[in-house]
């Protein structure tokens, strides 16, 4: 079910997904304009009520700009768009998004972004580590991201953002089926 950015309410859903896609041309900052779209107020209310929210790539950037996740995503350290397959490690305690995956599992996923360099102040990074809220780490950092962060979760455990694309790795015909495990975990968590 797709929801128009100008909507002020969400339909009855179990999960809100914010996909990749350079919304509004990433003008100003990546995700900045999309984060102020009318529908985002409804997404913030949905998240506050415990609804699961998954932000992928541009969606992760939007979640940071909205304040649902801490930190921000800046231009890749190398200054170049990075489009390739890589491996991320599942770290931290199980979440609704990774419950079916063992700690230390490796996922083979594609990335395609210009702004994947996660930044936050040291205090925030320390807190994310201490609270087990770093969920995905790059095995080989492609963009300069602080502490190899590829994905994080909010303190309530219902809002997750990541730069790699699990939805583009849901079958061997796509190159990998590892991403499907994220959605399988979610379906289990949602009953």
């Amino acid at each position: 079910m797709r929801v128009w950015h100008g909507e002020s309410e969400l339909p009855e859903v179990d999960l809100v997904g914010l996909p990749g896609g350079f919304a509004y041309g990433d003008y100003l900052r990546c995700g900045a304009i999309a984060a102020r779209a009318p529908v985002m107020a409804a997404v913030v209310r949905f998240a506050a009520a415990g609804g699961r929210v998954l932000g992928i790539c541009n969606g992760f950037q939007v979640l940071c700009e909205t304040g649902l996740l801490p930190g921000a995503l800046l231009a890749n350290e190398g200054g170049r768009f990075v489009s390739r397959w890589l491996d991320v490690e599942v770290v931290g305690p199980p979440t609704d998004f990774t419950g079916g995956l063992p700690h230390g599992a490796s996922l083979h996923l594609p990335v395609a972004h210009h702004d994947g360099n996660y930044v936050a102040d040291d205090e925030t990074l320390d807190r994310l580590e201490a609270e087990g809220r770093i969920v995905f780490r790059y095995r080989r950092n492609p963009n300069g991201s602080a502490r190899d962060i590829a994905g994080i979760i909010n303190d309530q455990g219902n809002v997750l953002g990541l730069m790699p694309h699990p939805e583009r790795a849901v079958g061997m015909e796509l190159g990998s089926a590892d991403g499907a495990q994220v959605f399988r975990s979610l379906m289990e968590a949602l009953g």
Partner: protein
Amino acid sequence: MKVRVEVRLKPGVLDPAAATILRSLHRLGFDDVQDLVQVRAFEVDIAKVRPEDALADARAMADQLLANPVIETYRLDLVE
């Protein structure tokens, strides 16, 4: 009333574009250039008569959209 909102990355936040421009200046022979900061500036024309009102509006705009406090700082200046 026009207000100029100038936004820049906080010190210590890497700007790959600025680093590339700096390297290019060095290649052109500007060896004395020690650092270079790229800023983003907006001129906002606000329908307010009193400067303090226009500045207050511009500050709210910077806080809510034009700058991201996680990575950026800003300054405001009246243009006229």
